[in-house]
C-alpha cells in the first residue's frame, strides 16, 4: 500500500540530518559581526544551533538540553521556563536566543535592560518553526546552512506525508500526561505532526491544545493506536491494560511509547515525523 521505494529513497537522502556542521562553520567564521558567545534558552534552539554549525559558539544552555550529546556538557543557565539572569550575565553572551511562547518575560526584560541582545523566536507550528530556523541562522551568521536545514526538513516531511497519504488513517490518541489523562489535541505541536503523519486524532477540539479527555470519550472513539509520551523514555506511566481493556489499541497491543525529547521543533523534526508515522502505520521500516 505504501510506496516503499520513495520512503527508502528519502531515508537514504536525508539520513544525514544535522551533519552539515562543516559548511555552517565555514560560513560563520567569514561573518564579520556574527555573535561568538551564544546562550540558548530552549532545547530545540540548542539542537538547531548545533545543526547549522554554530554549536561551538554556544556558551550556555538549559537543564533540558541533552542533544546532541555535547550540548549536555555545556554550562546550564536556564530551566524550561526561566533563565537564571545572573548566570547568563556572567557568561557575557553577545546573543541570547529564546522562544516567544514560553520564555519568562521578566527575565528576558532584565537581560535586555542589561544590554544583552535577545532574539525571541516562535515555534507554535511546523511552518513557523521553519521560519524560526532561518531567523536563527541569520542572527548567528549562518543563513545558508539554516535555510538549507529548513528546506531539507520541509522536503523530507512533505515527502513522508506523501508516502502516507493513501494509507488508511488510523484513529489515534496521543497521551502526554497521566493521572489524570492529558491528551495532545490538533492545536498542539505534536497534534500537528500526527495530522501530517496521516493519523486521525480522536481529540478534535480547537479550544485547548492539551485537553483532559473523558475516559468514556476514549472508549467511545476507540483509538486504534495509542502514542504514549507520558514517560521521557522506556516504560509507559499509564497502566493501559487495567484502565482501558476494551480499547482496540490495547487489545491489539498497539501502544507505542515514544521519547518526548524527539518531538522538538528542531533538526530532528523529520525523524520525529517518521517515527510517529511508523507508529501510526503498522509495519513500517525502522530507521
Amino acid at each position, binding site marked *: 500500500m505504501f510506496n516503499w521505494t520513495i520512503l527508502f529513497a528519502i531515508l537514504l537522502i536525508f539520513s544525514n540530518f544535522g551533519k552539515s556542521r562543516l559548511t555552517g562553520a565555514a560560513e560563520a567564521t567569514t561573518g564579520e559581526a556574527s555573535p561568538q558567545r551564544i546562550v540558548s534558552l530552549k532545547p530545540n534552539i540548542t539542537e538547531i544551533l548545533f545543526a547549522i554549525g554554530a554549536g561551538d559558539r554556544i556558551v550556555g544552555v538549559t537543564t533540558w538540553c541533552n542533544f546532541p550529546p555535547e550540548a549536555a556538557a555545556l554550562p546550564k543557565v536556564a530551566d524550561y521556563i526561566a533563565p537564571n539572569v545572573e548566570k547568563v550575565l556572567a557568561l557575557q553572551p553577545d546573543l541570547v536566543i529564546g522562544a516567544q511562547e514560553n520564555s519568562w518575560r521578566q527575565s528576558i526584560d532584565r537581560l535586555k535592560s542589561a544590554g544583552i541582545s535577545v532574539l525571541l523566536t516562535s515555534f507554535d507550528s511546523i511552518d513557523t518553526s521553519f521560519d524560526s530556523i532561518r531567523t536563527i541562522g541569520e542572527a548567528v551568521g549562518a543563513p545558508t546552512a539554516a535555510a538549507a536545514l529548513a528546506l531539507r526538513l520541509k522536503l523530507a516531511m512533505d515527502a513522508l506525508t506523501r508516502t502516507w497519504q493513501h494509507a488508511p488513517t488510523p484513529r489515534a490518541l496521543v497521551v502526554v*500526561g*497521566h*493521572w*489524570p*489523562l*492529558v491528551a495532545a*489535541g490538533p492545536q498542539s505541536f505534536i497534534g500537528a505532526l500526527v495530522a501530517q503523519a496521516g493519523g486521525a486524532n480522536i*481529540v*478534535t*477540539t480547537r*479550544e*485547548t491544545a492539551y*485537553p*483532559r*479527555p*473523558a*475516559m*468514556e*470519550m476514549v*472508549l*467511545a472513539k*476507540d483509538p486504534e493506536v495509542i502514542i504514549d509520551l*507520558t*514517560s*521521557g523514555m522506556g516504560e509507559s*506511566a499509564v*497502566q493501559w491494560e*487495567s*484502565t482501558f*481493556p*476494551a480499547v482496540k489499541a490495547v487489545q491489539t497491543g498497539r501502544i507505542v511509547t515514544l521519547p*518526548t525529547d524527539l518531538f522538538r521543533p528542531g533538526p530532528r523534526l523529520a525523524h520525529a515525523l517518521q517515527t510517529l508515522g511508523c507508529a501510526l502505520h503498522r509495519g513500517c521500516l525502522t530507521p
Partner: protein
Amino acid sequence: MRRWCIINGCLLLGVALAALVALNLGPEPVTVWSTTTTQATASAILWSARLPRILLALVVGVALGSAGSAYQALLRNPLADPYILGVSGGAALGSAVVVALGFPFIVVAGAAFAASLASMVSIYRFAARPGRTYTHALLLTGVVFNAFAFASIMGIHTVVPMQRAHEILFLLMGNLALGEPMTTAGAAIAVGLGWIVLMVRSRAMNALVLGEETAASLGVNCRRLQWEVFAAGSLMIGATVAVSGLIGFVGLFIPHATRLLWGSDHRLVIPAAGLLGAMFLLLADTLARTVLTGATYQTELPVGVITALVGAPCFVWLLRKQL
C-alpha cells in the same frame, strides 16, 4: 431510632438515585437502556468508566462529610473543615514527598495518613486551649499551615522530573478521574474503618460538645476520645487525599447543612453527613465530567473547582454568622 432509620434510609435512597442518574449521564449518549453504541463499548463506558468513578466519589464524599462533622464536634467549631484547617494540605504535602521519591501507592496513602494526623494534632495544639477553641486562632493556623504546605509542595514540584511534577499538581487540583479499582477499594477500607470508629464514638461526641467538664462528669475520657477521633478522621482524610487530591469545602458545609436540617445529635449527624456528602460530591463530579466534555472543549474539569465554587460562598456566610 425510628427517625434515624427514616432519615438515613431516605438519604441512602437519594444516594442510590444520584448514582443511577450519574451512571446515565456523560459526554457519550450511553445509558443503561441505550442501544445506540455497540454492546461492548457501551458496557465498557458504563461499567469501567462511569461506575468506578461513581464509587470513588461516594467513598470520598462519605469521608469528607463524616470526618468534617467529627472535626467540628471535637473542636466545637462549625468552621472546622479538613481543607480549611490545613489537614488536607498536610496530607497532600506528605503524599507529595512520597510521590516525588517514586514510592508505590500504598506508601503514598500511608504517608498521607501520617501527615494528616500530624497536622491535625499540631494545629489543635496551637489553636485550642483547654475548655475552648478560638475561631480566629484556628482559622489563622489553618491558613498559615496551608500556605506552608503549598509552598513546600511547589518547592518539591520544581525539583522533580516532569512526570512526577504532573502527579503532584494533580494532588492540588482535586480530581476523581482514573480511579483504579484497587485504589478505590483500598480507600474504601480505610474510610470504612475510620467511619466505624466515628460511629462508635458518636454518643461521646455529643457529650464533648457540651464542654469537657460536662463530658468528663458523664464518664467520657476526653483525651482518649480526641485521639481516637483525630486518628479516625486523619485516616479517612489521608486516604481520600491520596486517591483524589485536595477537594475543598465539602467537609465544611455538608455537616453544617446536616445539623441545620436534622439537629446536632452526632449519632445521626455522622452517618447523615456522610451520605449527604456522598450525594453532593457525586453530583459535583457528574457536573465536572460533563460540563466541558462536549465537542467544543473535550476536556474535564477538576471536581475541586466545582466544590470550591459552591463551598467558598458557604464559608463566608458561616463566618459572618459566627463572628
